[in-house]
């Protein structure tokens, strides 16, 4: 965007909102919104503390494990149901149900099944991320050019070759799109898991700060979480753009 002939860098609008936040905070209108500058000062204080680092570690562990399983299971399942009519009929309805289902309501069931520990949190994270990854991988395979498949067959490709050398790459732009959205959903999943299942990680920090009305701390941790989620999403969007050159010409 350009204003008065000057080209503004991306996301300059955030500065405007930050300014508004600061002004509202300074007026002391509500304890809920402390001045943004105070939040950043708190952020710097909090970030090195053992409690924060422990929360960061616990959250990162559950998040990465959850995303790992969502990707490792979601992509092959999506490709397989995209290839096989039978599997598609069997599995697709469930994918659509779980994609739109309020997964938070399932968390208590998971606790009964898998206990109150890290395992349930990881499974919750996976459940938040996996469905969109399956659906997008399937969509990627569905639009594959028939003659690429014929080409692989005519040169004697084994099913494994076709899977790893044709289907995966042909579906990659959609797969990355699915992983990007899945990762954003996994951030939700891991925090909800930490709040509902066992109070650990960032979930525990949120609980602690909000119960004690420590709003500066609350916002500080939330900003860290936003920043991490945003960076992850931008990184995956960058990977997506790297492969988009062939998305149009498959």
């Amino acid at each position: 965007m350009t204003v008065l002939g000057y080209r503004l860098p991306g996301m300059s609008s955030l500065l405007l909102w930050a300014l508004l936040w600061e002004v509202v905070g300074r007026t002391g209108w509500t304890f809920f919104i402390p001045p943004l500058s105070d939040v950043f000062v708190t952020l710097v204080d909090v970030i090195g503390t053992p409690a924060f680092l422990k929360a960061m570690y616990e959250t990162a562990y559950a998040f990465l494990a959850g995303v790992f399983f969502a990707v490792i299971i979601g992509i092959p399942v999506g490709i397989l149901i995209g290839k096989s009519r039978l599997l598609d009929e069997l599995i697709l309805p469930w994918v659509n149900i779980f994609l739109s289902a309020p997964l938070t309501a399932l968390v208590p069931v998971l606790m009964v099944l898998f206990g109150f520990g890290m395992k349930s949190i990881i499974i919750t994270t996976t459940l938040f991320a996996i469905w969109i990854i399956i659906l997008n991988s399937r969509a990627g395979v569905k639009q594959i050019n028939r003659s690429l498949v014929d080409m692989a067959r005519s040169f004697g490709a084994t099913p494994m070759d076709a899977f790893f050398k044709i289907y995966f790459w042909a579906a990659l732009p959609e797969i990355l799109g699915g992983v990007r959205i899945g990762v954003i959903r996994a951030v939700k999943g891991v925090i909800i898991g930490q709040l509902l299942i066992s109070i650990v990680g960032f979930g525990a920090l949120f609980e602690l700060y909000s119960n004690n009305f420590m709003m500066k701390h609350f916002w500080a941790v939330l900003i860290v979480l936003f920043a991490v989620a945003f960076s992850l999403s931008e990184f995956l969007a960058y990977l997506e753009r790297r492969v988009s050159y062939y998305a149009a010409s498959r």
Partner: protein
Amino acid sequence: MSQTNDAFAKAVPLDADSAVSVRNVSKNYGDVEALKNLSLEFPRGQLTSLLGPSGCGKTTLLKIIAGLLKPDSGEVEIEGKIISSPGPDRSFVFQDFALLPWASVLRNVAFGLELRGVAKSEREAIAEKYIKNVGLTGFEKAYPHELSGGMRQRVGLARALAVDAQVLLLDEPFSAVDEQNRRKFQEDMLELVRGENKTFIFVTHSIEEAVYVSDQIAILLPRPSRVSEIIRPTSFRGTGKENIRRSPEYLDIVDEIWASLRNYVE
């Protein structure tokens, strides 16, 4: 069974010279008869065109020979063996090129060999040679989206040649290529058929193209699909590629084919 085979052998004296024999092949899509009891011989070392109006089943026939489609009845014999699936004796050139958009020209040309398990250095050396043969030297590192349509099909052709199959199947290979490139391709095809001792089966909807490049033209007619006529141009082969289009026989054959096909154009 043996009786019918004997009868067939007598009926087709060319059999001994055929690289590919299609015998009594039928194929239906639901209620639509794509091919009905079709038999055709493809002489070794020559180029045979399958020519006909759209819907005459020429691409279906080519895919059955490739082993990509199964006939409902009948059989295809290649170099004495009855085939039921794709094999290393055949390679395919696709109308829409079917290149891997995420792979370089070099990897695309070597891809057939890659799928056959040829070691990387060896297959790349072979690919280099065919990239040179089709005139794409210097483009080894380029990606398909950086090439023109004509260049992309050269990659498809090099890939098909690199696996050194006895039979090359070309499905309207130049129809997505601009006119000038197509002419160049047609000239190159003539040299290719002379230079390589391979059997070419060429599907086209262009009468001029078929007559220009073919040793044998099979005219296929639809409803029900059948071979209506086999034409073998004689006089203008070997007169040089620039003289073919001026040869009276070339012009007569083009007219004759158009006369028999014009009724089928909707």
